[in-house]
């Protein structure tokens, strides 16, 4: 436990908690628009921003924020103007950003390992100022995502309806893009630019296995993101007494493990929901009585009971048995 008395570890814990909260908050809106890979696109663009910082000798965090925001707005503009699916716009920026970043790093005379700190994260070397920047930016992202939830939800759910409802859809779209860019740079030091999208998307995918409403999905994703981020950091810290375990990939793998555990539960819940959906309230054409019936249907008989109009049908080997007096009808 004395690990947590070390200053660098305390800074790492703070950064992990705030990143874990902010990334899934924006991620929920990205997944809702079916733009799960947007975080990846912005992450690739931000590589160029980091390299620009290394080249010019300014703070890579701030150049990354600026370039990521510009890239995110560019993605939105291409999406809107081109009337195209976001994936083409994303693809264009993916490659440009990554190639530009590697090229600029070389020009700056920096080694690949310096860039790697940003590509795959290095949460334990985070400085005091960087922690404060992370906390403030993450807090802003979370406040906007939660405070404007009704508006952001409506715009992502149905942009045309939102426009007729008088919302300025373009402003909200750019706002989400900027929030995504900010959380990419916030998560840059925690899980790295190439893995940041995982922290935005995997907690949301995990949460929606078991949730039915948007609000619980948003809340659960933020909780899962924080747990994965903190848990991954702690696991990697203790494991590093024995082997070299990087925190970034540990956090992402822990989040994925969470998804793998929840997924079968989601499959089960969805199939049960489908099985129990009521049959249309249509009366059968004719009165057809089942053959001799070996047992009595009831709440404990084990057969799925499905509402059908004013009664219940029991699903029995591909048949629907409806109780009728002393016998069962085929429905």
């Amino acid at each position, binding site marked *: 436990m004395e690990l947590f008395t070390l200053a660098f570890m305390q800074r790492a814990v703070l950064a992990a908690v705030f990143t874990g909260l902010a990334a899934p908050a924006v991620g929920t809106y990205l*997944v809702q628009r079916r733009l799960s890979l947007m975080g990846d696109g912005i992450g690739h663009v931000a590589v160029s921003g980091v390299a620009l910082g290394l080249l010019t000798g300014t703070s890579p965090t701030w150049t990354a924020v600026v370039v990521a925001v510009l890239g995110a707005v560019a993605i939105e503009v291409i999406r809107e103007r081109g009337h195209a699916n976001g994936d*083409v716009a994303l693809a264009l920026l993916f490659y440009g950003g990554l190639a530009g970043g590697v090229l600029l790093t070389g020009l700056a005379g920096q080694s690949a390992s310096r860039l790697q700190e940003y590509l795959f994260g290095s949460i334990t070397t985070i400085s005091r100022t960087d922690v404060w920047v992370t906390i403030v930016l993450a807090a802003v992202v979370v406040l906007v995502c939660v405070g404007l939830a009704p508006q952001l939800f409506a715009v992502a759910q*149905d942009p045309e*309806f939102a426009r*007729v*409802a*008088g919302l300025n859809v373009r402003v909200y779209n750019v706002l989400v893009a900027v929030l995504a860019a900010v959380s990419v740079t916030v998560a840059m030091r925690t899980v790295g630019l190439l893995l940041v999208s995982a922290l935005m998307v995997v907690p949301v995918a995990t949460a929606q296995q078991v949730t*039915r409403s*948007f609000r619980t999905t948003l809340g659960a994703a933020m909780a899962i993101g924080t747990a994965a981020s903190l848990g991954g950091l702690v696991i990697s810290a203790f494991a590093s007494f024995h082997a070299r375990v990087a925190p970034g990939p540990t956090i992402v793998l822990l989040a994925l493990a969470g998804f793998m555990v929840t997924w079968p539960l989601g499959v089960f819940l969805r199939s049960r929901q489908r099985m129990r*959906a009521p049959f249309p309230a249509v009366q059968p054409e004719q009165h057809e009585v089942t053959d001799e019936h070996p047992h009595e249907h009831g709440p404990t008989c084990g057969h799925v009971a499905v509402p059908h109009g004013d009664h219940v049908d029991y699903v029995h080997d591909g048949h629907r048995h409806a109780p009728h007096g002393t016998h069962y009808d085929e429905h």
Partner: protein
Amino acid sequence: MTTPHTDPVHLRDGAVSIGGRPVLRGIDLTVHAGEFLALMGANGSGKSTLVRAFTGLHPLTTGHLELFGTPLHDFDAWQRVGYVPQRASAASGVPASVWEVVASGRLTRRSLLRPLSRADRAAIDEALAVVGLGDRARDGVSHLSGGQQQRVLIARALAGEPDLFFLDEPTAGVDLASQQALAEALGHLKARGATVVLVAHELGPMAPLVDRAVVMRDGRIVYDGPPLDDHAVPRAGLEPDLGAHAHHPDPAHHDHTPHIGSPLEGGQA
């Protein structure tokens, strides 16, 4: 007839082009307060485009449009307008409950960062009750049938308590039971004195509600008068009578198709 200055919809000599191609030409249409207007016609006749022009989603190339006597450009009383877009589903990439989708229709009357008031909650509950989904409020919207999802979209428009409704083919691909529920909900609106513009292929159970029919063909209005029965529409539209069953939704819907060849071009596909 009310004065032309307060009619819910007043369009003079309207035209709409999409991607440089003229789609609607020479449209003169005034919808009077309290009227239930059915906008009919074959696929591609421009009836959905006309409704989208009324709501500002498609800009007019020429012509003059007023909503409640205010030019569209200056119109900001969007809480008076309820829009039910043509959708196959009310679901999106993340689960959402029926209540949440309907509540988003209340945003026209809520200011930023203000929590839901008691009046907001009452309006949402009433909207759900009108479409007969009061008991499904907490269910995920993707778990509902197609017809029930259409009713959710109508409830969403109802939640803002507007007095002018645009409904874009709410009955496309909806089973008869849900069509009846839709017709009941629309009858409720009509009884409240709302103005309704309904885009429909066939009216089915909604036929008794219609006061006035407008038939479109190839981007122009070819009939404007008392309601027609479903089989008279093709004749009014000067179309060969394809029967009542040639009602497939337009497959050439471009919203979600990636245009790889031209990602940077302006305009809308």
